C-alpha cells in the first residue's frame, strides 16, 4: 500500500476532492458514497485518500480501510490507461472466457488485478456484463469486444501499442519541427 507512487495528476485530483467533501454530512452512512466518488475520479484509493476520508468523517483510518477492502469496487493500485476487463460471467465461462483472460495475462505479462509497469494496461475480471449472446466478451476501455478468441487478443493489444507508437512519433516529429 505504501509503495503506491502518486502522479501529479493523482495529487491534483485528491486536492480537488478534498474541497468537495463538505457536500457530505459527516455520517458513517456517507462513507461508501464518498469512497465511490474518489474511486470514480482518481480510479483508485491511495493511502492519502483513506486518511483524508477518515479525517473528514472523524473515524479511524483503519475503519475506512476495513470497509474499502471489503468491496470489489475499490481498487488500491492505479489502473492502466487501457483497462481490460474480461467477463467471466457464467455464459462466458461456458464459452471459455478463462482462456481469453489467460491470453491477456500472458501477452501483457501481468496477472488479473495488476497493472503493467508503464501503466498502459491493467487486467480485471468482471462478472456478467449482460452480453451473454456475444460470449466470450472482453472490454477494453469502453469498447465491448464480443466473440473473443485467443487470436484476437494479440490484435487488440497490438492495436493500442501501434497507436501509441504512432502518437509518439507524431509528438517527436512536432517537437523536432518546432526546434
Amino acid at each position, binding site marked *: 500500500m505504501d509503495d503506491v507512487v502518486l502522479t501529479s495528476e493523482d495529487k491534483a485530483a485528491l486536492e480537488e476532492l478534498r474541497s468537495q467533501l463538505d457536500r457530505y454530512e459527516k455520517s458513517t452512512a456517507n462513507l461508501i458514497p464518498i469512497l465511490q466518488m474518489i474511486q470514480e475520479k482518481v480510479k483508485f484509493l491511495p493511502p492519502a485518500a*483513506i486518511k483524508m476520508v477518515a479525517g473528514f468523517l472523524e*473515524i*479511524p*483510518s*483503519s*475503519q475506512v480501510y476495513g470497509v474499502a477492502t471489503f468491496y470489489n469496487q475499490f481498487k488500491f493500485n492505479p489502473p492502466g490507461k487501457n483497462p481490460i476487463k474480461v467477463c467471466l460471467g457464467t455464459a462466458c465461462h461456458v464459452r471459455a472466457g478463462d482462456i481469453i483472460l489467460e491470453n491477456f495475462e500472458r501477452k501483457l505479462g501481468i496477472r488479473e488485478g495488476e497493472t503493467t509497469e508503464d501503466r498502459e494496461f491493467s487486467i480485471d475480471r468482471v462478472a456478467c456484463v449482460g452480453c451473454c449472446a456475444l460470449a466470450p466478451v472482453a472490454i477494453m476501455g469502453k469498447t465491448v469486444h464480443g466473440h473473443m478468441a485467443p487470436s484476437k487478443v494479440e490484435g487488440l493489444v497490438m492495436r493500442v501499442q501501434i497507436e501509441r507508437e504512432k502518437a509518439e512519433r507524431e509528438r517527436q516529429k512536432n517537437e523536432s519541427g518546432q526546434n
Partner: protein
Amino acid sequence: MVKILVDNKHIEAEDGANLLQTCLDNDIYIPNLCYLNDGQIPFAGCRLCYVQINGKPVASCTQKVAEGLEVQTDTPEVRSLQKAAFRLLLSVHDIKCKECPANKRCELQRIGKFLKVGLKVKGLEVRLKDPGLDSGHPYLLIDQNRCVLCGKCVRVCQKKHGHSYLTFAKRGFETVISAYRQPEESPLNFSECTACIDICPVRALLLKDV
C-alpha cells in the same frame, strides 16, 4: 424468570436471556470463540457453540431463553458440527504450541481437549498466510496464522473507545485483522489500554518490544 432444561439439568434464567451465557453461568461448557457478553447482537461467526433444540442444531449464542426450552449440548449432530468447524479453524492455524505464548491457556487447546480432537488435522490441506506476521503497527504485532478471526479485539476496542482502531480487512478467505498504518491518530500507547491484547483467546495480538 423462566425454567429451561439443559441436558436433563433444570435451570432458571431470565426470559429472553442469551442461551450460551445462561449455560456458561450454570457451569455447562459449550465451546465458543467469538462470543462476548456485551448485550450486542451476537457475532455468531465461529460456529462452535452449537446445541440441539427440537432435533435441530442451533448456534446457542443466537438463541434466547424461553419458558420450557429443552436443550441438548451433547448429541452426535452437535459434536459433528463442532468438530467440523474446529478442524476447519485448525487447517489455517500455525500449530506451534510449544513456541506459542498462549500455550496452556489457549482456547483452541481447551476446545480440542473438550471435543477430544487432536490439534494436528488429518485429511485437510493446511494453508497458512504468507507473510503471517503483520508488524506494520508501531506497537502491535498481529500473527495472522494464529488469529481465529473471532473479532473480539475489534468489538472490545469499539466499546471502549467509541471507534475501533482495529478492523477486519479484505474479505473471505483473505480476511485479516488489521491495525492499518496510521499510528499518529491512534490513542493506543498501550500503557493505558491493552484491551484487544487481553481479550484475544489465542494470543494472536502481541505488544512489540519497543
